[in-house]
């Protein structure tokens, strides 16, 4: 993960309030939004219960995040963005982002919406992000790298993700 800079001033408090008080799309529970992808089938085959809620997903395309938002930069490139909330005990198994594999010249970013807390875990290509501050932005060295996250701490974990591509 390549540290880009701190974008604390870009983060709006109303976003934080909304995310902490409103649940987004429960994943993978909402089967209608889950592709019948090899990764989901693989997860189910080793015991992950796809009827449970492992994380909440928010984006603009399904109105799960209705507040105004512009990317910190590169708004003119093709892009997608999404928030993730994990309550204590939630996790996202190791995976590759489908869009990062399918699109061209992808740049994949991650922004912390809170200061680091013990038990808030993001793993990317074997690298563990810790001691970050609210607003810290990182870019994936490799947008197709396998990564995952979990919350074995005691407070909700919220992050912002976006990718730009040709």
């Amino acid at each position, binding site marked *: 993960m390549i540290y880009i800079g701190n974008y604390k001033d870009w983060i709006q408090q109303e976003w934080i309030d909304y995310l902490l008080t409103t649940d987004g799309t429960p994943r993978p529970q909402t089967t209608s939004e889950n592709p019948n992808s090899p990764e989901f089938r*693989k997860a189910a085959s080793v015991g*992950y219960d796809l009827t449970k809620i492992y994380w909440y997903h928010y984006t603009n395309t399904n109105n799960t995040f209705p507040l105004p938002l512009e990317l910190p930069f590169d708004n003119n490139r093709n892009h997608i963005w999404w928030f993730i909330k994990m309550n204590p005990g939630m996790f996202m198994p*190791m995976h590759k982002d489908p869009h990062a594999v399918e699109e061209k010249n992808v740049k994949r970013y991650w922004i912390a919406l809170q200061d680091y807390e013990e038990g808030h875990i993001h793993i990317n290509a074997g690298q563990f992000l810790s001691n970050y501050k609210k607003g810290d932005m990182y870019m994936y060295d490799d947008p197709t790298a396998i990564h995952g*996250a979990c919350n074995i701490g*005691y407070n909700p974990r919220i992050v912002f993700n976006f990718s730009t591509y040709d």
Partner: protein
Amino acid sequence: MEYIGNYKDWITPELMNHLKTRTGDTTPVWQPDRWKGHPMLDEFRELARPGFAHKDHDFQQFNSSSKDMQDFKFQLPDLPKQGDHQRWWFIKLLPGQMQAMHIDPHLVEVKNPVRYTMFLEDYHPGHIFVWNDKLASNYKAGDVFEWSDPMIVHGCVNISFQTRYTMQITMFDD
């Protein structure tokens, strides 16, 4: 964590087959009956209550009291520091299982504890053990680490696609 050495030869195919084919004790992540009697345990019990008290989070454990270990005899590895007593347990984390950040409850009851962790298989992405903002990674099967502070807050989770196995040992005095 201080690297002690590699004890791969201690890990027998019989041991791994036993752990892989038995369930062990299904243990809840939140253990209010054990997390009490010490200010740190009281603190963690209440910190964890909102997130973990009413969920079905658990993990698999094998110890000397486990039904699944009564027919499996073995000797502990010959580790550098010995105590008057030893407590051992294996942790088997199926994909999606975890232990929230915690301290080990038994450590508040014993004298001069020395805490060891042995990884029973090579590191695999998504096998997560964290302490002091650090991640254990790139270890090999049989690698043993001594905890610099047995009372350190730690946690583990398996977000991979294969089961994770470790052995835990505490040496302590009367």
